[in-house]
């Protein structure tokens, strides 16, 4: 198998490198849980992976300040988004992260989470549409009109459809 990893997916900026260093310092046991939560909530534009109170708790638990925590969360989200865009295989992702100087344990954590949740995440992204109105569910009723105020002994079938939008 060739060693060519394709185009560099992760940027080479100082901000990103600083984030990588911060990630390297996070405890091994906590990192997979962090990643799981992030990837599960990433597809919805309205929900943040962590609420403000939870971020306060994380700041205490991980021994970082708020801006460092935000940097880590944003970089992890960005890594997942890039992986989804290029539909990366978990192994390729791990190798790209390794080249960006992420620790071995963190790379493996990424690989595991991506392997488990990656496909789900990609299909959620595929379903997203820019169209303003998207039809969600349909309900119907079938009526048989028997009479009205100026006419009786009728037999007119009518169908009523209700469509809801997302």
């Amino acid at each position, binding site marked *: 198998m060739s060693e060519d990893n394709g185009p560099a997916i992760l940027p080479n900026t100082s901000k990103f490198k600083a984030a990588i260093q911060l990630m390297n310092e996070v405890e091994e046991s906590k990192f997979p849980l962090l990643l799981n939560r992030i990837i599960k909530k990433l597809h919805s534009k309205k929900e943040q992976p962590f609420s403000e109170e939870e971020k306060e708790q994380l700041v205490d638990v991980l021994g970082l300040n708020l801006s460092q925590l935000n940097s880590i969360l944003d970089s992890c989200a960005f890594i997942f988004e890039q992986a989804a*865009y290029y539909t990366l295989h978990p192994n390729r992702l791990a190798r790209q992260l390794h080249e960006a100087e992420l620790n071995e344990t963190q790379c493996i954590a990424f690989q595991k989470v991506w392997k488990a949740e990656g496909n789900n995440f990609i299909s959620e992204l595929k379903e997203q549409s820019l169209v303003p109105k998207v039809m969600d569910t349909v309900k119907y009723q*079938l009526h*048989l009109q028997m009479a009205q105020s100026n006419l*009786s002994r009728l037999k007119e079938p009518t169908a009523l459809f209700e469509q809801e939008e997302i």
Partner: protein
Amino acid sequence: LARSTLRMSSLALLDDISFFGPTPPAEVKKAVSVLSKTTPETFQKTLVLVVNYLHGSEIDSDLFTKEYAETELDRSSAIALFTGIYSLFRLAIRKRVKPSKFKHDLAELRFPASMIDEITETFKSCQHELEEAATDSVIRFPTVEDIKWRVDINISSSSTALSLRPSVLMRMKLTNNTTQQFEMNIFRFHQLRYYVAKTLKDMQDIEQLAILKID
């Protein structure tokens, strides 16, 4: 056996009772008494007026006076005649009676025999149109007037470089002058298609149902 005898007796009941009810309405009885002194021309004119009125044309009191000015009837008799005939027709249209039953029940009302045929003919000629007009003006939810559709395949987006996702875009024009334009994914499209097909099939089955044979 019990069900068929029950149905036969209810059908007989429908035929027994006249379309205007167990007793003739007061205004119809009054009209019949006026008819005995009405000329055929006046009667014809009344019929024409009633049919026009049922079709929706306005008749105010001046027009009414003008129409009956040259006839032998005074105002109260003319009113009684017009009201009675109009009432009769409206009941008959509403109950959707067959012309034969209409004729049979007219005899019960003691209509002069010469006029019964004329009335029945007039009734037969306007019945279909008036029933259609009634169904046209029924209260309804907005219905679909026009549908335009297209099928798209979303090749890529800013979140995925390769996503081959088909979708259906639809534009529905409704009778309340609104236009709904929306997209659905393939699963929802199949669900909609299935529901529409199912309702069409159920409508067909309903028409075959013997218990609903009321015509």
